[in-house]
């Protein structure tokens, strides 16, 4: 059956080439006819350094409408090129990146053209993007650690939530944020272990267990918050947070420094985990074995890989990673736990993982896209763009749908994903 699934692929009814070309041209038309036509007269100002930053970079000024027209023209050009020529793989990827960039530039030019409130704070936007995507990246990494070994992890949301709760409680009781980080991670790992036990030992449907763990995590944290954390907030919810740590030399580089090298420890942990998991999965013996277990457990078993042990280990590792993401939500960000603080990040992380085709770097790119959209919405409402904030909030999700449908298309999960392994 596995072989069948591999060979009989769904014939996609519209050629991907024309779909991508159409999407490019469509976005280009939006750039011209929406952002260009409706832009106010005047310049769009992109501030490239935070107010009072030492190496001050002068802001960029561009005429708003003209910028949008140019961006639209580039997109349409690339769309036509994509339709007539069969680009190499890197060319396709580059064209997608350029078209998305054009779309953003046009959008931002429209938003800031002739704006009296102020200029667009590019550094703030990028900084917010990076920090907003930390829990998404960690959640997506947790998901793919499990799924690469063949266990679907929908419990990311629950792992983030329990991680956040435990981190806040432990950090408050012990007074040490590091203990909070550790506690949050372990709590996520515990949920991962539960998922693993039910999915691997008791052969329960992995999607059911994941969904249910989310329900239980939400119920339990709400309950404990009502009963313990709320009434005794001075003991259990004091709101400790990590301070920021600027990396000596790198942190002083203009634009890049404040965005990537001037944050709290969670960002650096995230860098490390992305690197370790990407290299680990695709360039080490461990990764090869994990992927073998996720693609063809019987074959892996035949050559002596311990399938169930690999799965246990990966799901629990994933839980630990998601727990760190949860800890970020409290001790790394706002400090205090509030009910349902993860508010769907786990599901967005899941989408990011699928969007990123079950690879760490792909997931990071998808998570950054979401993070960027969240932060963009904040920046645009600061600029008092005359559009309802709900429409702005909707935009990232519509953009994802367009991207998934128009540019990414069919993705292929690990072949044994979600299927319990029973030794014959």
């Amino acid at each position, binding site marked *: 059956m596995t072989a069948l699934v591999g060979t009989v692929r769904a014939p996609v009814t519209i050629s991907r080439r024309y779909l991508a070309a159409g999407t490019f041209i469509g976005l280009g038309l939006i750039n011209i006819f929406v952002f260009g036509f409706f832009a106010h007269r005047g310049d769009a100002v992109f501030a490239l350094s935070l107010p009072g930053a030492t190496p001050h970079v002068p802001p960029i000024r561009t005429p708003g409408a003209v910028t949008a027209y140019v961006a639209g023209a580039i997109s349409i050009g690339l769309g036509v090129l994509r339709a007539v020529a069969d680009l190499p793989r890197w060319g396709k990827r580059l064209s997608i990146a350029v078209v998305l960039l054009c779309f953003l530039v046009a959008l931002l030019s429209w938003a800031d053209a002739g704006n009296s409130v102020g200029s667009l704070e590019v550094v703030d936007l990028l900084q917010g993007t990076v920090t907003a995507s930390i829990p998404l990246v960690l959640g997506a990494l947790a998901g793919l650690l499990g799924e690469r070994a063949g266990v679907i992890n929908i419990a990311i949301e629950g792992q983030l939530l329990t991680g956040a709760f435990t981190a806040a409680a432990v950090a408050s009781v012990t007074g040490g944020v590091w203990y909070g980080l550790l506690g949050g991670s372990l709590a996520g790992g515990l949920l991962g272990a539960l998922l693993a036990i039910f999915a691997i030992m008791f052969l329960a449907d992995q999607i059911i267990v994941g969904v249910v763990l989310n329900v239980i995590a939400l119920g339990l944290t709400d309950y404990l918050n009502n009963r313990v954390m709320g009434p005794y907030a001075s003991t259990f919810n004091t709101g400790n947070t990590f301070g920021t740590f600027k990396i000596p030399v790198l942190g002083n580089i203009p634009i890049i420094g404040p965005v990537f090298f001037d944050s709290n420890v969670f960002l650096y942990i995230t860098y490390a985990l992305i690197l370790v998991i990407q290299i680990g999965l695709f360039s080490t013996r461990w990764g090869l074995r994990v992927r073998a277990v996720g693609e063809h457990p019987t074959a892996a078993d035949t050559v002596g890989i311990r399938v169930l042990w690999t799965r246990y280990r990966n799901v629990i590792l994933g839980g630990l990673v998601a727990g760190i993401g949860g800890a970020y939500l409290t001790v790394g960000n706002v400090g205090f736990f509030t009910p349902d603080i993860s508010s769907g990040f786990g599901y967005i992380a899941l989408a990011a993982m699928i969007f990123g085709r079950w690879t760490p770097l792909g997931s990071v790119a998808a998570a950054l896209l979401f993070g960027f959209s969240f932060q963009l919405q904040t920046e645009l409402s600061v600029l008092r763009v005359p559009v309802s904030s709900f429409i702005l909030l909707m935009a990232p999700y519509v953009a994802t749908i367009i991207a998934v449908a128009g540019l990414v298309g*069919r993705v292929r999960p690990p072949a044994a994903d979600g299927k319990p392994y029973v030794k014959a």
Partner: protein
Amino acid sequence: MSEQHETEPAAAPAATATAPDAGTAAPGGPGGRRPLTGSLIIQAVTEGHSAVITILAVFVALMIGAVLIVASDPVVLRAWDSFSYAPATALSATWNSVAAAYSALFEGAIFSPATVSAAFHGGSIAAIFYPLSLTAFEATPLILTGLSVALCFRAGMFNIGAAGQWIGGALVATWLGYAVNLPIVLHAIVCIIGAFIGGAVIGWIVGELKARTGAHEVILTIMLNYVMYNLLSFLLTSHNLMQAPGQTNAIAPNIAGNAMLPHVGGPPPQVGVGFLIALAAAAATAWLLSRSTLGFEFRAVGASPSAARSAGINVERVWVLAFLIAGGLAGLSAGTIVQGQTAPLTFNSYGTYGFDGITVALLGRARPLGVVLAALLFGALNAGGTVMEAATGVPFDVVDVIKGLIVLFVAAPPLIRLLFRLRRGGGAGPQAVTSQGWSG
């Protein structure tokens, strides 16, 4: 809707150990001799028949819930502090706390003995059935969202988007409810059809995009949920769109009285036409899945898309139609709420119906009858949980945990067998469902 005689397509791995299966696998019945009913029952109990597993799962979940109830009761905790010299006090305090909470839960969901004696002394007889009507009322939207998720499961897809489809239905039903003037009965019918169509459109978008571009339905449904949450808030906060006149909050106008679904006796919440619509939808879904050609195609695609394609089934068409109907069912769920309650649509009316639909579908093993029973169980827990919270101060969150635990244990029959030392039955045992990983 005889679930047990449903013929699964050949490749279907979801083998539910229903009574006939357990009978054929029985060691006591070789040579075609039919075992006696009594021995069948005993055998079902000792081997962990799926109904027995479910009952035991509910029992274990209630036990764990009891721990939470005790842990949240300061009286009991204080009694346990002095356990060493007054153990009886601690134990009786524990028992009292749990018993009070669970009897309140039972009285709120099934029936309360007090109402019976009241009826003998000139009280209302209808009051006896009030808790049951609350249960049915709570179960109504869950049956429909549960069917929505279950239908997609049977076609091999995961519908996380019942919430978004719910909003689609709610928007159309509400708009038809206040903006159009129609005679009684007709207005309600138009609105409920509108609710179906509103949800079906959102579901159709998912199916169409999946079929045409290969995009993954999990991403599409999650994203559409967020789009719909924000669309709802946007429409309800815009003066010239759907906001009630003179309001500053995100709230829609009241729908016309003609558009309300009538209630069978008494004011809401009472068993209304909504509940009957939900039951009819369950029957229709059962017929569709087990008796119609389209339903056979759904199940074939759900069992193996590639095999279905080789057999000449148009897989893309199945994806589109399954999501279209599933969306419609979620929309109907919204219709029963919008037209069944006196409160107008607000920015958070969608509540947790969509996500509860997933748990209900999983507990009901994606079978329509199972979904109805699961929704009734959850409805009873919801109805009773509210009463329990009011009467004993035990937070409603305990009920949410119990609901989750029930599904968790039902999904893991080996664990329940281990806990209660049940023998392993013949065959694979009740395999819980449905989902075939992501590949759809």
